[in-house]
């Protein structure tokens, strides 16, 4: 492994931490001279500046290529009237294949069924930094609207020229341009036949305001839905190209272990087995899974293991190893916290911790790789196909144009499929397989061990409030977990907010919502304690310190739906609230819990969540995202926690790493506020943030026991 210092520190506020590839291969110069590259059938690969801005310069830097201005790069209208949209975003279950097609159909004025999306194929779609940070809706949706609007205007201009009438007299819609005066019309397909691709769209196109949407804004069902109930859809793991071999990697016994002895003489004797050893990388490929497993079992290897930190000491380690802040942005301060504390009627100093958790996407990391005449094609479930292409090009010393990454619609990711690992591994094995494709599917244990985690963290909060319940001081320190959602939405004159970097212990990266969940857990739990200290209702206390009308709106709507403040009708009942805002969207969550002290049991009865992300593009898809985030959030809130010792994950199985199942799901009410006057924001992340503090606060309401550690469940026995 050849990692730079940069890769050991978590990038704090950017949408995504960039994990370095796990492997660096020592390919000789001769290898890449062998590569001869007539161009791939590249159709309009282009770069888009708005997508590029999402990513800070990584090891590869920015791509200085020209911006895509050709309509053909983003949109194609076929002679049969089929409209094809092109976007570098990946479909990972969040339904962008549907919402992006809706957007094009809506703006262009064609039937939804006539639009098809080509997504996440580095040879076919415009450059895209990645599918993350809840960015598809706020950046790709307007981009495709502008393209569709420009295409529509061009079609109108063409018809106007043909009929010799003024363009503004014509109407576009229903897949045709019509002249109401003469009654003439021409279908888009006919108009688009000649000389369409090379035209440039005007820089600023008017696009339809949300109030005028006809296809967007409606609950359109998932594209290709039938394929998913018949088993017909092919995920990466399902691909079986002709002549394919099955690959497998021999993993080190622990993190950081290096290979000190390697003997493959017994394995070499097997027929049809490809063996690869490249530095610390050891793997094999064979025609069946059984054969490749047999080959790896015959390898005689020795590893040198190195001491590693365990979960028992992780929080004290994070505090002790915090680095001095290198960058000004890590620390925000205004007023004087000291004075604010002096003026306070109540003060509260508390510490919160958040465990490492895993994404555990049901489709494990997987890739199929094939080398043909020095060109590499990789099929892979990734959120960052272009970054994977760049890693592959770098590591195998081939030009980017000779690498193609294709993302089949993927069995979920949640921020976990950013790195190129499975693709690099499959490509390295395929490189030794003489042109035969190699498929590599990580086992569940590999998933839980060799992917990356949502980082653990410690958060210290010191605060003060005046006798009337107004915040007078707020000091917030996050160690390691990250800066997303770190800034308080509450009005307070004296405050310090600081992020402390700590060198990585476990390989860590993005996860749905990033650190916003940790920061909201600490902040909203703390706010609840402050409300209690001032003997105020927790909702009233929040509203008293809150100016933002959108955040007030989600809280007030939720209070009405939940019936806050509620009277307890049984001993052991508890109600909690938490709220927040991040990435342009707002959330308020209300929880009802029931604690039976005699049985020492806790039941989550109900969750009500209000979510607002501007104008809703697809209410059905949005409801999926919100309810999905709420349920997924139960895991990190209640029981998910990665345990580790001696460089090994102790619970790398679904039997020991508990994820939410049917019995864990309470009654759920999700309320979506549609603000047609506000540009659409993304929705993949924010709805997860307030689940944990709402539940923890409800538990306090029921028991007067304050929970300060995520996951909450190991602490629940305290009540006994």
């Amino acid at each position: 492994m050849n990692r730079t210092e940069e890769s050991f520190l978590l990038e704090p506020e950017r949408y995504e931490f960039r994990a370095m590839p796990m492997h660096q291969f020592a390919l000789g110069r001769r290898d890449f001279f062998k590569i001869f590259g007539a161009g791939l059938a590249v159709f309009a690969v282009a770069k888009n500046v708005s997508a590029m801005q999402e990513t800070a310069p990584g090891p590869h830097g920015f791509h200085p290529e020209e911006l895509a201005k050709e309509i053909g790069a983003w949109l194609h209208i076929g002679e049969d009237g089929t409209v094809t949209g092109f976007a570098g975003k990946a479909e990972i279950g969040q339904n962008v294949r549907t919402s992006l097609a809706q957007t094009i159909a809506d703006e262009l004025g064609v039937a939804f069924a006539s639009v098809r999306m080509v997504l996440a194929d580095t040879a076919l779609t415009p450059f895209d930094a990645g599918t993350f940070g809840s960015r598809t809706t706020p950046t790709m949706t307007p981009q495709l609207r502008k393209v569709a609007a420009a295409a529509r205007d061009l079609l109108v201009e063409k018809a106007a020229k043909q009929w010799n009438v003024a363009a503004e007299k014509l109407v576009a819609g229903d897949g045709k341009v019509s002249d109401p005066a003469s009654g003439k019309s021409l279908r888009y397909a006919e108009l688009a036949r000649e000389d369409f691709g090379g035209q440039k769209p005007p820089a600023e196109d008017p696009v339809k305001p949300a109030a005028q949407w006809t296809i967007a804004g409606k609950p359109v069902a998932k594209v290709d839905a039938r394929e998913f109930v018949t088993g017909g859809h092919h995920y990466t793991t399902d691909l079986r190209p002709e002549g394919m071999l099955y690959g497998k990697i021999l993993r080190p016994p622990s993190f950081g272990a290096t290979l000190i002895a390697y003997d493959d003489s017994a394995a070499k004797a097997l027929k049809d087995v490809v063996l690869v050893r490249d530095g610390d990388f050891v793997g094999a490929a064979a025609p069946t899974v059984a054969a490749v497993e047999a080959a790896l079992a015959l390898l005689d290897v020795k590893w040198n293991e190195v001491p590693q930190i365990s979960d028992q000491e992780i929080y004290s380690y994070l505090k002790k190893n915090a680095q001095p802040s290198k960058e000004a942005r890590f620390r925000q301060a205004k007023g004087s916290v000291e004075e604010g504390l002096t003026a306070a009627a109540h003060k509260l100093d508390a510490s919160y911790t958040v465990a490492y958790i895993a994404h555990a996407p049901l489709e494990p990391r997987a890739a199929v790789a094939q080398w043909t005449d020095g060109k590499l094609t990789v099929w892979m479930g990734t959120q960052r196909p272009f970054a994977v292409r760049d890693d592959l090009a770098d590591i195998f010393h081939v030009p980017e144009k000779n690498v193609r990454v294709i993302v089949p619609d993927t069995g979920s990711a949640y921020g976990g499929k950013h790195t190129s690992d499975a693709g690099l591994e499959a490509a390295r094995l395929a490189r030794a397989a003489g042109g035969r494709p190699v498929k590599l599917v990580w086992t569940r244990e590999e998933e839980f061990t060799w992917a990356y985690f949502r980082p653990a963290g410690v958060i210290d909060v010191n605060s003060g409030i005046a006798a009337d319940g107004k915040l007078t001081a707020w000091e917030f320190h996050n160690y390691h977990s990250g800066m997303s959602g770190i800034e308080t939405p509450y009005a307070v004159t004296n405050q310090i907010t600081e992020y402390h970097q700590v060198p990585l212990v476990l390989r860590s990266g993005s996860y749905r919502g990033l650190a916003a969940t940790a920061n909201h857990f600490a902040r909203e739990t703390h706010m609840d304690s402050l409300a209690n200290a001032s003997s105020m209702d927790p909702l009233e206390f929040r509203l008293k310190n809150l100016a933002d009308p959108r955040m007030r709106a989600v809280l007030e709507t939720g209070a009405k739906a939940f019936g806050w403040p509620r009277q307890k009708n049984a001993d052991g009942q508890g109600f909690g609230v938490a709220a927040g805002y991040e990435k342009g969207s707002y959330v308020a969550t209300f929880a009802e819990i029931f604690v039976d002290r005699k049985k020492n049991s806790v039941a989550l009865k109900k969750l009500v969540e209000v979510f607002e992300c501007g104008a809703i593009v697809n209410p059905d898809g949005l409801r999926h995202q919100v309810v999905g985030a709420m349920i997924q959030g139960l895991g990190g809130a209640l029981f998910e926690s990665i345990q580790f010792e001696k460089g090994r994950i102790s619970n790398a199985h679904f039997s020991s790493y508990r994820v939410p199942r049917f019995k864990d799901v309470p009654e759920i009410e999700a309320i979506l506020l549609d603000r047609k006057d506000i540009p659409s924001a993304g929705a993949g992340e924010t709805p997860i943030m307030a689940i944990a503090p709402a539940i923890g606060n409800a538990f306090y309401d029921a028991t007067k026991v304050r929970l300060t550690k995520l996951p909450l469940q190991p602490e629940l026995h305290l009540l006994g």
Partner: protein
Amino acid sequence: MATSLELEINGRKYSVNYPPDTPLLYVLRDELGLTGTKYGCGEGMCGACTVLLAGTARRSCQIPVSAAISKPITTIEGLEKNGALHPVQQAFLDAGAFQCAYCTSGMIMSSVSLLQSNAHPSAEQIVQSLQGNICRCGTHPRILEAVQRAAEKMQGASK
């Protein structure tokens, strides 16, 4: 050692040559191309690989292929009849009961098994029978709704 084995899957006979302890899942996916049945954990903990063995939901990653001979096997590919979806498939489609949909085959197979043995399951019984199937996207409420819808449809059809 690879052994010749006869399997009956979705009403068709197959002859495969595999070590008898190979999990049925690998034979279905790798040998026969029936990839609708998914690998999720290989430990019988997630339900993505669920098939019907003699009419009962089983985790195909936990069944040695030798234990599946002379018993009819149904996979997700075998539910559709003459171009018409099984009522459970149709109910999942109508309820939009999937997001990434990687768990969907297993959810549908478990639900088909439940409704074959219990035509009128209560909500608790549905939850109980799907407890072994993991959905990471959090689609649980819609899956329950789909199974309830399917139960109603199937009762209506059998009346």
